């Protein structure tokens, strides 16, 4: 078992301790955390930088404002309610429509009908801090509900698939597509059972997937092949991720993007402590890529140049054949 350590080291695999000690503590000063931990701030920063984010309909900051909910969504049929400081995709309510008979009854993404009172209870739970990391009082965001691009429709089970990109010192280092499964309950978090698929940085094409630390070729629910999907507007996605660094100044950053059918790639959120499963999804160690970025790092490079550098340097070693089970 211990013999595995040098092999992992050789493969350039980044461990949790090393990630925390060498990168998060070094490049992510604590004072910058609110920029990514509070989605309201993240959105403002991104908007100021001219980046594409899902439109914010309104923020409910305390229990007294909860009644404003109906006003905020008066003109909308679909929207998302989420905690500003939530983690792991918890506390997110996706409303896709309203009941035909009664406008104050909403339809969730799962098809369940829910009353306005229930949504307001959910909002007060969010404000009470039920979903925030530390249990502190929180804010509830009401924002645009992404109509996701059909590119991943075959390989997701409900929920919103997203693209996670690790950005190291402004350079996109590694990417994966996170595909919700039945087990993950529509959430795109790998530890909740979502499938992660590695991405060829040069082409934006998905590689094999990983489910619970094991490599899979097919989506467990839909059975569709995970590999070989081309992510649209890949160049724009990489540039947006690279700009995430300029906005947050976090040297070790996870940028989560969704691809909207109409609006294209949008920045959903950013993360100061992105997980390490992305290495398994890509079958590649992060440490190697980080070391490479340290070599080519140019402090004056523009986001577009950094995105180009990532496409140039981090092409996946292509597998020559993919075994099909017939």
């Amino acid at each position, binding site marked *: 078992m*211990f013999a595995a350590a040098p092999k*992992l080291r050789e493969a350039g695999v980044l461990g949790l*301790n090393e990630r925390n000690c060498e990168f998060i503590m070094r490049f992510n000063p604590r004072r910058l955390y609110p920029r990514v931990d509070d989605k309201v701030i993240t959105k403002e920063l991104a908007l100021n930088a001219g980046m594409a984010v899902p439109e914010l309909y309104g923020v409910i900051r305390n229990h007294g404002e909860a009644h404003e909910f109906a006003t905020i969504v008066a003109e909308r049929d679909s929207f998302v309610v989420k905690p500003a400081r939530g983690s792991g995709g918890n506390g997110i309510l996706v409303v896709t429509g309203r009941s035909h008979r009664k406008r104050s009854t909403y339809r969730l993404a799962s098809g369940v009908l829910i009353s306005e009172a229930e949504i307001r209870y959910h909002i007060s739970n969010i404000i009470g801090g039920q979903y925030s990391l530390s249990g502190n009082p929180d804010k509830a965001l009401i924002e645009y509900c992404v109509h996701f691009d059909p590119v991943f429709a075959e390989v997701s089970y409900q929920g919103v698939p997203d693209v996670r990109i690790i950005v190291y010192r402004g350079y996109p280092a590694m990417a994966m597509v996170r595909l919700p499964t039945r087990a993950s309950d529509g959430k795109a978090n790998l530890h*909740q059972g979502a499938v992660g698929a590695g991405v060829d940085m040069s082409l934006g094409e998905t590689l094999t997937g990983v489910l619970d*630390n094991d490599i899979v070729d097919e989506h467990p629910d839909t059975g569709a092949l995970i590999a070989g999907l081309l992510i649209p507007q890949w160049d724009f996605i990489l540039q947006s991720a690279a700009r995430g660094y300029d906005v947050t100044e976090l040297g070790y950053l996870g940028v989560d993007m969704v691809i909207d059918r109409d609006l294209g790639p949008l920045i959903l959120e950013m993360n100061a402590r992105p997980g390490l499963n992305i290495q*398994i999804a890509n079958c590649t160690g992060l440490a190697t890529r980080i070391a490479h970025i340290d070599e080519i790092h140019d402090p004056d490079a523009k986001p577009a140049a950094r995105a180009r550098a990532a496409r140039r340097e981090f092409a996946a070693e292509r597998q020559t054949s993919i075994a099909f089970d017939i």
Partner: protein
Amino acid sequence: MKQQYVYGLAAFLAIVGLSVFGYKWRVLDFPISKNQETSVWTIESSIRFESGPGSIKVNLLIPTLTPGFRMLNENSVSRGYGFSLNYGSGGREAQWAIRRADGLQTIYYRISVYEDAGTDQSDTTPPFPPPPVINEPFKTAVDVIVGDVKEHSADTASFTSELLRRMNDPSPDPNVELLTSNAATRAEFVESITTILASARIPARMVHGLEMQDRQRNAEAITWLEVHDGDRWRYFNPITGEENLPEHFLIWWRGNEPLINVEGGSNVQVGFAVQENHLDAVTIAETQAAQLGASAIDFSLYSLPIQTQAVYSVLLMIPIGALVMVVLRNMVGIDAFGTFMPVLIALAFRETKLFWGVVLFTLLVALGLSIRFMLERLRLLLVPRLSAVLIVVVILMLIISLMSHRLGMETGLSVALFPMVIIAMTIERMSVVWEERGAVDAMRAGMGSLIVAIAAYVFMGMQWLEHLIFTFPELLLVVLALVVLAGRYTGYRLLELSRFKALVGR
């Protein structure tokens, strides 16, 4: 650069901790293991007498200052007597009193002492004694002897030796013979010597003590001579004139007063019985520390009140638990709830013992979880819900205690010692994880917490470790150094090796 600071700090802490430890262990002789034993002498003095018709008061002189020995404890066994310890002119006195008693009475006074060569005579320097009033012809004899001996001696010690030599001369000087002729007993003989020394203005006392041997049924108090040379007390064998104290010689009382004084009783007999035991060095160190005023002891935990010591013996193990947790979480990679929750659970296990601790903890958390899920349906806000869980936990504890008491299982009672806030928090955290990440993750983190708690309990319960840390609290600096080093450990966690196994060999 930072790495070097960390190593430097860790090295500094470790060196400071280890050198203080080494000093206390090597120089101050603190016992390094709990099983080191020291011989302890227990002396029982039994007082027998026949009671008279009226009230009875018994005064016994007991050891006050005992060079070479330190008192561990003392007690008295007597039926119906009032007992008190007083300071009299001749040192400490034990006093027993009773309004009336019938027949033969026996009173026991028991003292335990242990040998400690470091015990110095902490007696004060006595004033020069006034010249004793002596009748003729003894006065002339004393004057002649004093004058004679003075000429043949240089200082107090040599004066005493010379005097003793003359007094014990088989063919004595007529003056000496005159003085010793009335001394029937050894005590009277020594008393006459102190009189002579007093005439020479040398402070001198009789000391009476026991030459202790194991399993002595009837030890005799023998009299020794104590002379102050202006600097310290010196001990002389009144017969041989040698300056020494016999081996295992415990000074019981000093002066001319009789050992025992019984008012209202007759036929008084005092006997001494001696027994040697081997006692734990720590017990002795504790007593020693309570009595010693040495500066090294002042900063030792043994100088704290016993109750505080008991608290600290537990508190000092918490860093050990923290170290265990650092290793298990950052090096092994076990998932657990909260930062210090497992250590606090481990503390609770100390009271309940491991098996029942695990059983009770699991039971409480399982019951609490199910009730927490019921509360979930009520849609309570966070703080009221947490409070509700806390109250439920308290009620559950109460029920478990009552039920186990009914069933005659006393272990259940110790459930009350469980930190209920910790349990309530564990339940809350677990239920949140349960909802967010599913039952598997919640169970895994719950099991992780339990495993870390058990490991912390095992280490925190190691007697030798507890002794070591309590006796040498400076070792905590070494623990701190280890934790600091672990803080810069950037290697893989043990469980990561299997997590990333898919990446090996590609």
